[in-house]
């Protein structure tokens, strides 16, 4: 049994699924697109963003990447559009727009 | 008698009848016999009547039922004679051994017409003379060995000494007392 999670889907034969439906790879959920759930999308105004990163810990979907002390653009492949980051931002740098 | 000897013990919870049955199994095992030693289980507590069983044989024992027609019965507490049907199923070719200070003549009327042999021993007396404390299972064990003939008394004493030596390695006085109790019981049982 050497199938990787990326090769497993709901058509996979029983012989090829992992024993006990175990998974032997970390964080395979990253390959699942929850961005598709979104009806409203956060938009970051880089001009207003002071890089305080306060929005980061409040994101339930780990969709605000941080690198070199600075946040990047939203991970829209996973952001579900809850809008908490808008409330978390003290500088009004994030707004929600309708749709994806 | 066939090579299989079946013994049923009657005692009260806490008196050591079960332990005596297990000790008998132990000592018979030590001379190469096939053995079984098991109590009848229930929720009984201290003082309640209990039953334990022994099978001792020269061949493998496979049967796993209780014993209904024993060759011998041991009564560890004579007060049981009033409430428990101790001779039920007891073979008349065998016998019953009772811990009592009474004579055989005095005991027999309590045995519901049992026709086989009756043996008595005053285990209390034996214990007091040898151990200074009342542990009836020790003399009863010796007595049933003699009565049932499952092994020779001197072999029994030798095996018991070996086993007790191990058990009471740090208490030689306990070993001595126990051995005296066994020896005296072998003499006293009649």
């Amino acid at each position, binding site marked *: 049994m050497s199938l990787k999670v990326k090769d497993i889907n709901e058509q996979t034969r*029983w012989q090829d699924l992992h024993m006990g*439906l175990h998974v032997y790879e970390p964080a395979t959920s990253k390959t699942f697109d929850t961005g598709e759930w979104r009806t409203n999308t956060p938009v970051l105004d880089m001009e207003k963003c002071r890089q305080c990163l306060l929005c980061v810990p409040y994101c339930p979907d780990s969709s605000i990447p941080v690198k070199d002390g600075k946040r990047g653009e939203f991970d829209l492949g996973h952001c579900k559009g809850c809008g908490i980051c808008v409330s978390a931002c003290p500088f009004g740098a994030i707004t929600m727009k309708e749709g994806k | 008698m066939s090579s299989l000897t079946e013994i049923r013990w009657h005692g009260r919870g806490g008196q050591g009848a079960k332990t005596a049955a297990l000790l008998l199994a132990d000592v018979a095992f030590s001379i190469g016999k096939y*053995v079984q030693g098991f109590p009848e289980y229930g929720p009984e507590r201290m003082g309640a009547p209990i039953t334990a069983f022994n099978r001792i044989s020269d061949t493998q024992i496979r*049967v796993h039922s209780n014993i209904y027609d024993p060759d011998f019965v041991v009564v560890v507490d004579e007060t049981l004679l009033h409430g428990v049907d101790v001779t039920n199923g007891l073979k008349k070719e065998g016998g019953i051994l009772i811990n009592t200070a009474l004579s055989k003549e005095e005991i027999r009327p309590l045995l519901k017409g049992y026709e086989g042999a009756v043996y008595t021993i005053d285990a209390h007396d034996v214990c007091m003379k040898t151990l200074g404390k009342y542990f009836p299972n020790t003399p009863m064990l010796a007595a049933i060995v003699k009565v049932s003939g499952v092994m020779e008394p001197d072999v029994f004493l030798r095996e018991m000494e070996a086993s007790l030596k191990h058990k009471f390695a740090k208490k030689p006085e306990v070993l001595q007392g126990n051995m005296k109790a066994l020896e005296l019981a072998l003499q006293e049982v009649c």
Partner: protein
Amino acid sequence: MAVKERMSGNEAVAYAMKQVNPDVMPAFPITPSTELPQFVANYIANGEMDTEFIPVESEHSAMSAAIGASAAGARTMTATSSAGLALMWEVIYVAASTRVPITMAVVNRALTGPLNINCEHSDSMGARDSGWLQIYAENNQEAYDNFLQAYRIAEHKDVMLPIMICQDGFITSHAVENIELIEDEKVKPFVGEYHPEHFLLNPRESMAVGAYAVSNYCMEAKKAHAEAMKNAKQVILDVAKEFAEISGREYGLFEEYKLEDADYAIVAIGSACGTAKDAIDKLREQGVKAGLLKVRVFRPFPAEEMVEALKNCKSIAIMDRCESYSSQGGPLGAELMAALFRGKSKAEAVNIVYGLSGRDIRVEDVEKIFADLADIAEHGVGNTSTGDVTSNGAGDTYRYLGLRE
């Protein structure tokens, strides 16, 4: 040289536990298996084994902790009986579907009610569809031998299933009998070390266990589980063969006692089989062709093999120390009857419920069953005259043994 000893069934299994020395044992006491964690705790207290013992607060937690420990990569065991097994119910299914090779010593006892502490197979039989392997013992020797073989079977890569090693509560668990123990030098290499392919504490990979699975995965997972159960049959036989080399004792999926030419057969599980053998010997002396099929492995259920072994019998009494309340008999009866039908057996068969809640079964009882079987073979189940041993009346395929009426 094997070590000749005398010990109770519980002592024997505890001794096997000591020899195998698994990594972890969570357990909660319940009569009549209580002695097992006690013995183990004593061995540990005296430095004779180094298993980590978890004195959990319930059997549910015992099985939960066992799953955690086994998934983490530790060889794991536990022990229970009756209500304890019932309290584990939910998590024994989890253990099996999680494919963790836990060994559980089950000391069979009746499930309430009424409350009773004595032998019956209702506890493990109730768990028969949980996906665990189940092996039963006639006596202390078999309980010991089965425990030594358990991990080899459960941990086999084609199996990876938990296993129950069952023996009869009190009747064997608390009876001191002769036994032959195997020396440590032989046991250790036979059992070997546990090297799981995947485990939670593997620093080289992350592993996730206990998924929520949608329908499109669940059925496939259950099929794989069922297939592992099938695979176990051969593994059990292979392990038994190797075990015979170190012990001289041979085991199969079941034992046939004077069955080859038997006209009348009893099929039973556990300690009653020894009693049945004595009865069969007596009857054979009288010229009655009586035989026994003693079920050792109940899961996987060796249906075809049993039908084959019984093919020359005229009548068969299938003995259940368990009531199913199906109004058809007990679990062994139900499964073997179905197998006999599939195998196009011509034998007349009855299912006898016996020994519930510790009700004794004697040599005489077994002799009477064989007398019934002779009658049944001659007249057919529906036309027999003898109904004195087995209640519900002669003619019924579902009967009680030794019931007062």
